[in-house]
């Protein structure tokens, strides 16, 4: 349980190195004296302060998404119980905001534990190690996510990669600054409506500076990134050079009748960490 609380604390308070590098590069790139530059400077200072004070980078500590790689025979029920207890404790300590609301009654019981919170994505692997990754995804960026069904007449988007490119860029244009840009996109081409969004979010587990193994998707990622950064939306939508920090795309099989493109938007406050747990449950090495 202590290890999981520490993973939550670190995820809430410390921007991963790959994201920090990207943000600092974007800051240098903005024109001096602009409000875009001012915004990026505040963001830079905020990352330092949050880490130093061990306090949430953003007050919206987000949906709590656990991704666990575990060996065959791993007790998922016990892990779930421990993780829920860790979430409650991390909330008491202020690493997480009281952030989970009963959708019917509107009540917030202040624990962050309830149906769908936190969520667990278990994947068995043929190793004897346990890897726990955590993504905290705030509501502002979640609200600007979008799912398109192709063909889309209005955007002249057909069932091909060019059509995918058009709808992904439309999502960026629609989001403007509302998702707390500069943002990072996780995209899934294909799947059903649920797996499309699910897979789009697993793209956030990739290192920001990695490249896609699939050559076609790699071209699409670079193209969308470069084109989005020509739009001039900029940090916070203030206008400026950096609209996106990264684009990550995967593909899943689809039904002949369906062609979804699911776009998840991650804010600059990209909170994602993970650790390899030793057999005694202690943290071995950090994954980011």
């Amino acid at each position, binding site marked *: 349980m202590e290890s999981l609380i520490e993973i939550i604390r670190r995820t809430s308070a410390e921007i991963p190195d790959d994201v920090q590098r990207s943000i600092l590069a974007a800051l240098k790139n903005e024109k001096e004296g602009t*409000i875009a530059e001012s915004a990026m400077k505040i963001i830079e200072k905020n990352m330092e302060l949050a880490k130093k004070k061990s306090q949430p980078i953003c*007050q919206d500590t987000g949906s709590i998404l656990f991704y666990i790689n575990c060996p065959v025979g791993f007790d998922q029920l016990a892990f779930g119980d421990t993780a829920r207890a860790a979430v409650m404790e991390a909330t008491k300590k202020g690493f997480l905001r*009281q952030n989970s609301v009963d959708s019917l009654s509107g009540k917030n019981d202040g624990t962050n534990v309830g149906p769908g919170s936190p969520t667990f994505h278990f994947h068995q692997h043929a190793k004897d190690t346990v890897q726990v990754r955590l993504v905290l995804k705030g509501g502002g960026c979640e609200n600007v996510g979008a799912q398109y069904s192709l063909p889309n007449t209005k955007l002249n988007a057909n069932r091909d990669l060019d059509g995918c490119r058009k709808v992904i860029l439309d999502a960026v244009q629609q989001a403007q*600054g*509302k998702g707390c840009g500069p943002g990072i996109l996780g995209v899934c081409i294909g799947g059903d409506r649920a797996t499309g969004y699910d897979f789009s979010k697993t793209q956030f587990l990739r290192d920001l500076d990695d490249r896609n193994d699939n050559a076609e998707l790699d071209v699409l990622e670079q193209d969308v990134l470069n084109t989005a950064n*020509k739009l001039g939306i*900029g940090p916070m939508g*203030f206008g400026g050079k950096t609209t996106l920090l990264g684009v990550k795309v995967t593909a899943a099989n689809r039904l002949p009748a369906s062609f979804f493109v699911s776009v998840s938007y991650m804010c600059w406050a990209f909170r994602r960490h993970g650790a390899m747990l030793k057999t005694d449950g202690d943290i071995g090495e950090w994954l980011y």
Partner: protein
Amino acid sequence: MIELTTPITEEQIRGLKVGDEVGISGVIFTGRDAVHKYLHEGGKLPEGVSFEGGVVYHCGPVVMKDEAGDWQVTAAGPTTSIREEPYQGDIMKKFGVRGVIGKGGMGPKTLAACGENGSVYLHGIGGAAQVLAERITKVRNVYFLEKFGSPEAIWELEVDKFPAVVTMDSHGRSLHAEVAEASQAVLEENI
């Protein structure tokens, strides 16, 4: 940076334009989805609370009690404002709100109310919860804590040079509308 202290006059607001960076000092009140819906449906402000000449902050802070039993804001960035678009303009006019701090901008109804009422929309830096929490010097009071829960409550906060950017002014300009239009034009050239 232009310094403003609450209560803010209409004249001061009329002097602001899109792109101005401001620092707000004095007292501000948080209010987000539940509060806006409640006030718009005819709900009354709690006794002793006045928004006249005041600033409403779209924010659901993280607030902890310290060892002495006092509230401390430990994280407090802005939340997305557009959700309050159905209510904001009317609330500005009804309660005399001079400034709204949030993020992401708001729509035509709020922009029109800014013009009519002499109000502005101030954009905080989304996600900058620590930098902004440091500008909050004291929690004076909290209202509707039980009713709406901590993030949705009205927190009465003392602030010192709280930084924000004017992105919608009282002269009909919206940076958000301008950026969206310009980016749409570039997008059309590139698809």
